[in-house]
Every structure is written in structure tokens, then in C-alpha cells.
């Protein structure tokens, strides 16, 4: 059988993409388990309390890191590798090195998380894994990124389009961000609260400049690809891209309102957050006016349903984010569990949902194995339902938390936190639903990669070592 050029590219990508998707799935399960434990500890502080490894703070941070670097990192590699090669119409390069780097990446995260559980975390937001693992993470990242850039440079068509801008910028922003933060926090550490400004800036920028552009780029790719029509008002995309590039790095420090830092820092953050209305509006116009031209097709195609869920959640929750950055609102919600709302809506409701859609789109193409429709639909509905409940609980719970915390006469434990307790219970239930949903996703993925069930079960058991199993 003669393969067409797309199939040749897919074939060249099969091993690397499968490797990253499979590892991403395992990290997703690990993160789901951590998420459940940490939520359960907020409803019952005695849950697992005699094990030092399972202290709330450690589990909570392990969850965030497993989610962002394990699931996020691996799936970013998979999606970026595939889309960039497809758009460049070029076969992938340096496969052996990329897989090798991928193994290092996953090993480093494994050690990093064990380090956190063992009490060696750093205090820097989203850089909590112990200092020793970061050089390994950074170098393996650079190797993978290098080969993606090589593929992009040898593209057949010199004109670039929106998905490429977003994917490549995210690819390059991460190492830049990391180097800046690492220099200012570890190599040449700043003194006093300047440290906090920098670490908060890194933590927020990571989400805005690393995860967000990948998901946006994937959406710009998949919506026209499945619908078979061009993005509506595509000319706006350039504007949207540069708005994100110039505004997002500024808009992320309004969390410091009223804190012991220079006053202008949260002030600028607020102004820029409000200006973020423009890029959000551009992306949502692009996506939604295209999708709503052909809404029945969106509904029928499961990958697209995931993606549109993600883009809708991006739009809605980004606007909510703008509201929460206004100083008068921020001072109420600043330290409340609204922070979990922001994190989960961005990383789960938006990024992960789009990645789920992408994975369901890519996998059948490169492996040739279809994924059962029922299983995918189950995954979609449980995820959509779980995320909605989770976000609502954090949103309403966060508002309650913030408003009550502003009443100095209410006692802390027995009035303020007790009123938030029901929401903690809801998040615990939501995490159970999401855990099942993610289990189904991982089974779907592994089945597509390794259709032989026996092989699947043996691999499925070795969860803790994702790198060996692909």
C-alpha cells in the first residue's frame, strides 16, 4: 500500500507522540489521585494525617506539579510535535533523542514529586520541585524543543499561520521564563519580597504563556480542520496573538494587592488584566463565530466538542478573571479559594479539555485504531459535568470565603471556614467524578496505542513509572 505524505509524517511521529500521550495519561491519573487526597483532607483533616508524606501542603503542591509538568508538559510535547510537523509537511526529526529526552523529563518529574513529598520543596510558585531536578528538566525540554523548531524551520510553506505562532511562542517562552525565574530565585537570589514578586510572576506566567498558547494554537488548528472551513475573521488572530504576548506577562501580578511590595506592581497588573479583554475577545470571536456556523457538526464530532467546551470555558472564565482583578473585588477574594478556581478553570476547564479533544483527534490518525464512541462520550460528559461542578464550587465557595473573611467580627475557624466547608465537600465529590473520567480517558488512550488488552493491563499496572511503559 502506498502511503500519502500525511501518512508518512504520521508514521514518523507515531512512536514519539504515543510515548508522550501515554505518559501524559499516567500523570493525569497521579494528579487525580493527589487531587482527591488533598480535597479529602479539607473535609476531614484526620484523613491519612499520621503519614508525613501525605501532609496537605505536600499533596496539594504535588498535585499542581504533576498536573502542570507531568500531564501538561507531556501533552504539550505530543500536540506540538504533531501539529508542527503536520503544518510543516515534514517528517519528525531526532526521534531517538526526543524519546530519550522525554524519558529524562518524566524521570525528573518523578524524582521532583518524591522530593516534594519528602519535604525538599522550594517556596517558589510552580517551581516547587527540588532545585536538583530542574537542570535535567530544562535540558530535556530544550532538546525536545530544539527538534520541534528544526522541523518547523524546514517547513515546505514559508507562510506561517496562527497555530504555528501560538505553539512556537509557547515552546520558546517556557525556557525564557524559566531562566529568568531561576536566575532571580536560585542562582542570584533577590532579597525579601522581590522574591515573592518574581515567583508569583513565574507561576502565573507559566499558565498564561506556556499552557494557554498551546491550547489556543490547538484550537486554531483543529476547528478549521474538522469543520472544513476557514477561521472566521482570521485577520484578527495576529492582533490577538500580539496582545497576549505583550499584555499577559504584565497582567499576572495583581495578586499582590495591598501586600508588602511596591504599590505600582499590583496596580500595573490590574490595568493590564483589564486590557486582556481584547485578546480574549479576539480568540472567542475567531473560535465561536466559526464553530456556530456549523454547530451540528461540532456536536457530532467528539474531539471538536471537547475543544469548543474548552474555548467557551476560556472565554467565560477569562472574563470572570478580569472582574476578579479589579482592586475592589481583588481585596475581597485575593486570598480565598478563588485561587483554586482560577487554576482549575485554566488548567482543567480550558487547557485539558482542548488537549483531550486533540488527543482523540490525533491518536486514531497515527495508530489507525479507532476509539469507542461510547467511551469517549462517557469521558466527555463526566469531564464536563465534573469540571462544571468543581468550578462552581470553587467560585461560590471562594466568594463566600472572601466575603466572610472581610468581616472582622466573625471567628475564623467556626464561622468563616465552617461556611466554606460544604464547598470543600463538593470539590471532593467533583474530584471523584473527574478521577473516573480521567481513568476512562487513559484507558481509551492506552487501548488505542496498545490494542492488545493483555499488554494493556501489564502496562497499566506500572503507573508510577510511565517512562518505561511506552
Amino acid at each position, binding site marked *: 500500500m502506498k502511503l500519502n505524505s500525511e501518512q508518512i509524517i504520521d508514521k514518523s511521529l507515531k512512536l514519539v507522540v504515543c510515548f508522550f500521550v501515554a505518559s501524559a495519561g499516567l500523570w493525569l491519573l497521579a494528579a487525580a489521585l493527589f487531587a482527591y487526597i488533598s480535597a479529602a483532607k479539607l473535609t476531614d483533616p484526620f484523613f491519612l494525617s499520621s503519614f*508525613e508524606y501525605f*501532609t496537605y*501542603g505536600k499533596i496539594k503542591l504535588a498535585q499542581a506539579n504533576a498536573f502542570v509538568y507531568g500531564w501538561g508538559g507531556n501533552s504539550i510535547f505530543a500536540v506540538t510535535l504533531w501539529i508542527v510537523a503536520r503544518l510543516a509537511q515534514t517528517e519528525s526529526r531526532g526521534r531517538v533523542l526526543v524519546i530519550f529526552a522525554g524519558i529524562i523529563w518524566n524521570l525528573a518529574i518523578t524524582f521532583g514529586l518524591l522530593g516534594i513529598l519528602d519535604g525538599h520543596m522550594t517556596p517558589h510558585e510552580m517551581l516547587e520541585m527540588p532545585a536538583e531536578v530542574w537542570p535535567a528538566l530544562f535540558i530535556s525540554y530544550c532538546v525536545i524543543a530544539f527538534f520541534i523548531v528544526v522541523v518547523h524551520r524546514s517547513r515546505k510553506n514559508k507562510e506561517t499561520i496562527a497555530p504555528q505562532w501560538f505553539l512556537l*511562542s509557547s515552546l520558546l517562552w517556557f525556557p525564557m521564563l524559566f531562566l529568568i525565574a531561576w536566575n532571580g530565585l536560585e542562582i542570584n537570589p533577590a532579597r525579601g519580597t522581590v522574591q515573592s514578586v518574581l515567583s508569583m510572576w513565574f507561576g502565573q506566567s507559566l499558565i498564561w504563556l506556556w499552557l494557554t498558547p498551546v491550547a489556543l494554537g490547538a484550537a486554531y488548528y483543529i476547528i478549521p480542520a474538522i469543520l472544513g472551513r476557514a477561521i472566521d475573521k482570521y485577520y484578527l488572530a495576529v492582533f490577538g496573538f500580539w496582545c497576549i504576548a*505583550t499584555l499577559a506577562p504584565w497582567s499576572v501580578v495583581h495578586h499582590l494587592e495591598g501586600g508588602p*511590595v511596591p504599590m505600582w506592581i499590583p496596580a500595573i497588573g490590574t490595568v493590564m488584566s483589564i486590557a486582556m479583554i481584547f485578546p480574549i475577545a479576539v480568540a472567542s470571536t475567531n473560535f465561536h463565530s466559526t464553530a456556530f456556523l456549523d454547530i451540528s457538526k461540532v456536536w457530532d464530532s467528539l474531539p471538536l466538542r471537547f475543544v469548543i467546551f474548552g474555548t467557551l470555558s476560556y472565554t467565560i472564565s477569562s472574563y470572570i478573571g478580569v472582574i476578579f482583578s479589579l482592586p475592589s473585588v481583588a*481585596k475581597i477574594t485575593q486570598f480565598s479559594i478563588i485561587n483554586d478556581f482560577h487554576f482549575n478553570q485554566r488548567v482543567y476547564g480550558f487547557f485539558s479539555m482542548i488537549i483531550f479533544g486533540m488527543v482523540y483527534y490525533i491518536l486514531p490518525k497515527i495508530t489507525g485504531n479507532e476509539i469507542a464512541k461510547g467511551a469517549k462520550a462517557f469521558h466527555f460528559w463526566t469531564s464536563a459535568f465534573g469540571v462544571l461542578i468543581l468550578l462552581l464550587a470553587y467560585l461560590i465557595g471562594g466568594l463566600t470565603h472572601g466575603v466572610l473573611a472581610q468581616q472582622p467580627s466573625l471567628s475564623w475557624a467556626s464561622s468563616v471556614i465552617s461556611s466554606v466547608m460544604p464547598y470543600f465537600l463538593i470539590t471532593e465529590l467533583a474530584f471523584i467524578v473527574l478521577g473516573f473520567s480521567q481513568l476512562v480517558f487513559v484507558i481509551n488512550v492506552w487501548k488505542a496505542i496498545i490494542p492488545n488488552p493483555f499488554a494493556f493491563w501489564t502496562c497499566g499496572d506500572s503507573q508510577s513509572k510511565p517512562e518505561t511503559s511506552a
Partner: protein
Amino acid sequence: MNNLLKFTIGIFLSLGVAWLAFVVGARAQFGDLSPSSQNLDDDGNIPLDADLYPLPLSGTAEQGSKEYLALGCMTCHTQQVRMVEAGFDVERGWGQRPSVARDYIHQEHVLLGNTRIGPDLANVGRRQPDLEWLHKHLFEPQSLVPQSLCPPSPFLYDQVDQPSDKSITVVDDSNISRFIVPSIRAKRLVSYIRSLHQDYELPEMAFVINEEDEPDEAAGKENLLDFDSNQSSLPSWLDTQIASGKEIYMKAAPGGGLCFTCHQPTGEGLAGQFPPLAGSDWVLGDKERLIKISIYGLMGEIEVNGIKYNNVMAPPGIPPGSLTDQQIADVLTYIRNDWGNSASAVTSLEVSAVRSQIKGRAPMQMWTAAELNAVDE
């Protein structure tokens, strides 16, 4: 967009500009703060013999901060008291004054935190100075605060069968006693928690004051006035006067008295430096003396409830000596009626009477206790 190099430079610049501002800018402005004395001399220099603040942590406490980090306490606890206009942290009693950048310069790792499932800990050492309480709380917070979500850390303690002089007794709901012996790690952590207090003045309190002329303030004021005391049985004019007095007492902006920074929100003062107002024979005693102090300030040796202090209280108010008759009446009425104090209200007429009686006095000339007591007799 098609040239990769130009594209890279573009996105690098977009990040670089923000970095320049936040990191380089913040470093230039705040990066080289050094410890300072509570008050500067007239030329703005640190007096030669002054103590410098913040004080460095003790070695044990320093080690404890590592335990605090390692156990992830930061995921639920912040260590920052926000500016008065940004929240009610001071009102809640989480600190006597807002935190400023200088408070953190000794810390190797700054543990500001961004979520408050637990209370702010910036001043927990003042609230909970009792070692035994802190150990019990660390071992099992629920034994002290039944609804607490603070995670127990039984792994930091040895449980023994018999009480000894090293053990601490924890009694739970069902009256069962357990005897725990703190490990070295627990001792470090508790010593760290106890060392957390930002209860010194720094020169930049003046900076904080200037920052306060903001539109937000009006809203903040209203809420402050709303403060809910359990004195609702009082006549409403007195209620209003006490509420407005409390606001003046707690306010660090023009029109405020800043009293809380020295006498503390608890009215307890600071041992050896600032005399207490709670239960003070001065506060509950002769009104005339009080009014005089509030107009001109007080210096020199003073005996409050049998304890001697020798310090300076500049004419209160921002700017100094600017409190109006009504404000003085309000704040004095407040301090005479909080923290268990209960004494008659002061009216603005009384204040203006005293003011005209002493109007010959040179501005800013502080009273001494001896002088006031002499007038008395």
C-alpha cells in the same frame, strides 16, 4: 511572523519588558533595604545607639522556617498583613500594622503565601506566645479548636504512656489524656511560629500613611464604622462615638490617631515600651489629664498601674497634634470603653474647654507625667 528569528526576538522582547519592570525595577526599588531603627533622627539618619529592626531570626527559628516550608504550611497560611485600605487584616487582629517589604529582608525564603484557609501568621507569635499551646496545636489543632482544618502533625511527637517533666498533656473531647514529647523538629517549628511578629515601627510607616489618600478609602471607612461591637445595648450616640473613636484609634491616615501602632489593637501596649490603655489608671482616671495628653503628647517617666515607662508619645494624630476636639472626644471615649474598660464619655465641649485653658502653651511641647500630676493637686 514568518521569520523565526524575528519572531523569537519579538516574543522575547514582550517578556523582557515585563521582566525589566517587575524584576529589575522592583529590585532597584526594594532590593537593597536594610534593617532600620524604629525612629529616625531629625536628619533622617539612624540614631547611633538605636536597635535595628527587623531582628534576625534565632538559629532554631531559622531551622524551623525550613520545617514550615517542607510541611507546606504555606498552602493555607499567608504571612502578610495587607494595607489598611486593601482588607481588614488589622481589624481582624492579625497584625497591629500593615506588613512592609523591610519586614522580610532577613528571610532566606520569603513565605508570603497566597491562600488563607488558615489565619494569617505574620503576627501569630504575639497572639499565641504560649509554647505549650503551640505544641498542642501542632500536634493536634482539633484538641484546641474543634472545627479546625489545620492538619495534625502527630509524626513530630513521641507519645508516651506516663506524663513526665518533658511531656505535654493533650486532652481531647472525651477527656482522654495523651502525653506527647516534642521532637527536635517540632521544637524548631514552634520556635519559628513563635518568632513571627512584626511589632516594631519602621521609618516607612510614614510611607504607608501617604499612600492612603485613595478613593478607596471612603468605602473602607464605611465598613470600619460598621464594626460590630457587642455593646449594642448602649445608647446610640455613645455607640456612634465609640465606633468613630475606634476608627480614629486604628487609622493610619490623615485624620487618624495611629494609636494602635504603639498601644496595640488589644490596648495592652508593649512591655517596657508602650504603656497599656486597658485597665490603665490614667485612662480610667481624670479626663483633663487625658485631654491634655491627647493635645500635646507626653514624655518622660510615667507610672501606669505601678509599672514605670520612660518613652515619648508625640502629640497624637496625623500630622502630629492635628486631632480636632470631636476626634479627641471620640478616641478618648473609645479607649475608656473597650478591652474591659468602662468609664464616662468625653464630650467635645470638655475638650475645647481644656484647650482654651492651656492655649498659652507652646505648640508641640509635650507634657510630663510629673507636670500633669502637679496640676492635679
